[in-house]
């Protein structure tokens, strides 16, 4: 009986793991094939290993525009996630630790922001940026990406649970200013939550596809998602692009994988402690 109890979850987890890993495996295999072998060999196992050639072609195509897209994605995503996390942390912390009129109202408004999908905001944002003639610029994608209502929510919950009021009192008595207290004491206590927020935010911006699609026309500003999508829509006319899209897709998940591997420890801690406290 005990064995059965352990076996069942393992089976479910195993199936789920397989389900999630097979597409990645397929992508890896597909990206390692040459164009004619891609159509003619079995999809889930390697043929001649020509990943290096594919990579070379990918990085050379269109004057190396793919590398530029990767760099853009890292800047949009990394920059927005870092700054966005800081903003969310400050906001959540302020909502948790200071009493001021309208506090709950602000919190509720921010909370309702969680319910509005980013997709629904893309078009209004485009019309607003059009008013300032700021579409098709770096800022038209970067600025809207800074906002993260869920991060504010998480930061508030976590700050009220993990930063004791007594500690802040003590800091004040010792003559530390509020800003200094926040950066030297509170952020350290909130660190696991900040990592969680950072990762959530990172993934959300990395995957936010509609905003750049609507805002950008300059190829040099594209994030990698939009760039690969553009290529993919041209596969009918320029079939050479298919292998580049596949190889590009493989390369484009590498930063995400790295981010997760490096931060997964914090990620789990953050989620777990958020749930308990």
């Amino acid at each position, binding site marked *: 009986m005990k064995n059965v109890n352990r076996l069942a979850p393992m089976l479910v987890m195993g199936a789920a793991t397989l389900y999630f890993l097979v597409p990645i495996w397929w992508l890896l295999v597909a990206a390692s094939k040459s164009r004619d072998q891609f*159509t003619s060999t079995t999809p889930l196992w390697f043929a001649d290993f020509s990943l290096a050639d594919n990579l070379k072609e990918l990085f050379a195509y269109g004057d190396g525009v793919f590398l530029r897209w990767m760099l853009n994605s890292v800047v949009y995503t990394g920059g927005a996630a870092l700054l966005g996390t800081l903003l969310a942390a400050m906001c959540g912390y302020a909502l948790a630790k200071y009493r001021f009129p309208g506090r709950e109202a602000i919190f509720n408004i921010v909370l309702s922001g969680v319910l509005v999908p980013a997709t629904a905001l893309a078009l209004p944002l485009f019309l607003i940026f*059009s008013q300032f003639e700021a579409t098709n610029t770096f800022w038209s994608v970067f600025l809207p990406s800074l906002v993260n209502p869920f991060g504010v929510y998480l930061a508030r919950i976590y700050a009220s649970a993990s930063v004791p009021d007594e500690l802040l009192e003590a800091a004040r008595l010792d003559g530390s200013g509020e800003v200094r207290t926040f950066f030297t004491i509170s952020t350290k206590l909130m660190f696991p939550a900040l990592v969680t927020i950072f990762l959530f935010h990172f993934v959300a911006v990395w995957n936010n596809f509609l905003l750049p699609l609507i805002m950008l026309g300059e*190829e040099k500003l594209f994030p990698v998602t*939009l760039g690969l999508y553009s290529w993919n829509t*041209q596969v009918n*006319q320029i*079939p050479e692009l298919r292998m580049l899209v596949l190889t590009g897709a493989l390369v484009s998940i590498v930063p995400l994988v790295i981010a997760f591997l490096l931060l997964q420890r914090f990620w789990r801690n953050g989620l777990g402690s958020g749930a308990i406290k």
Partner: protein
Amino acid sequence: MRAALGLVLVSALALGACSSGGDTSAEGGDTKASCAPSEGNVTLTYTTWIPGIENVVKVWNEKNPNIQVKVQTGPNGNGGTYANFFNQLKAGNAPDLGHIEYDALPSFRVQDGLTNLADCAEVTAAKDQFVDWTWGQVTFGEQNSVYGIPQDAGPMALFYRKDLFEKNNIPVPATWDEYAAAAEKVKAAGGYITNFSQSDINQFAGLAWQAGGRWFANDGSKWTVNLQDENTTKVANYWQGLIDKKLVSAVPPWTTEWDNAYNTGQAWTWTSAVWGANSIMSGAPATKGKWAVAPMPQWTAGGTVAGNWGGSSTAVFKGSKHPYEAAKFALWLNTSEEALTLLNKEAQLYPATKAGASLPALSEGVEFYGGQKIYDVFATASTQVAADFVWGPTMTSTYATASDGFKGAVSGNGTLLDALKTTQTKTIENLKSQSIPVAE
């Protein structure tokens, strides 16, 4: 509709003329105002998804320091760029020029998003340079209207596996009857004569176009939708017959499965457009040297009618401050030999001009097709496309509905004709929901 549109146009022009302080009473004044050269240096924006377009535009920019063109890009039209155009028109920051396929032009026109270039003398003078039907696609067959400069065309012909046809002693079909007969023999030899495009409705549209089907018409006030006219019905029944006898395969087009069907010799022919030559080359590399191109099979023996699949135009958007310069650039892009040569080299575009058919690159034998001068076949086909085929203003949704029905039909769920019937009803509903007048 035309009167109303004209009124809108005139009032829009009047507004434009007012802001520049002109007199709006005479129509002649309007005409001038709408296509007059701008003073000083001009920078135009041009949105297109043609790969390698930067290299073409660079040539123009070097020669025309006063009219600089800035390229913007994105996914293909239905992949998001058309939606972007509509958003940009709404926000008032549409580019000066945009890449619009023929079947999408009417949707931009009913939304009043395009500048009528009929006032530009250089544009109307260029009419004779273009293959007649491509001009029909941008004028909608009306007087005094030019809503874009034709760019490329997709005249259709029959790609077939020369080696397999010869080996099995099957004559190359010249009529659709012979094609059906050949299909039986191909089946007996263990293959399929072709793969029926179940989800890309454009191929079917090309077949219907050839047969004389005319899906849409606009009499100036109302749209007529006729997806089941006599000729389209004939085409639908013909292919339904092949599907019922299981003489054609039906793997989804533009997939690796589809490539594989051609690469491994399962499918022996493909009735496709000129750009299909490149699709076979890259999708079925193992069949190098085994293909040839013949004219499209005919409905009447000895006929000379071809269909068209694809093609696009360069349009000037409403709100462009420099229609004269924009038209000038669009004409250079789509008529000059240097630009057409580059467009063909970078993106395999097949020119819409008469002279374009004899570009050096299009006069050579192609190794993949056993050295055959395949583009000669398409050059002839291009002159055989009927000029009066009109697209509707809601093609995206029309395609989507038809595609759903066709997918059902190939798996034994209803027929192609049923699918067209549903598409007809849905299209009319859709037009009405957008307040576009429909004649019933």
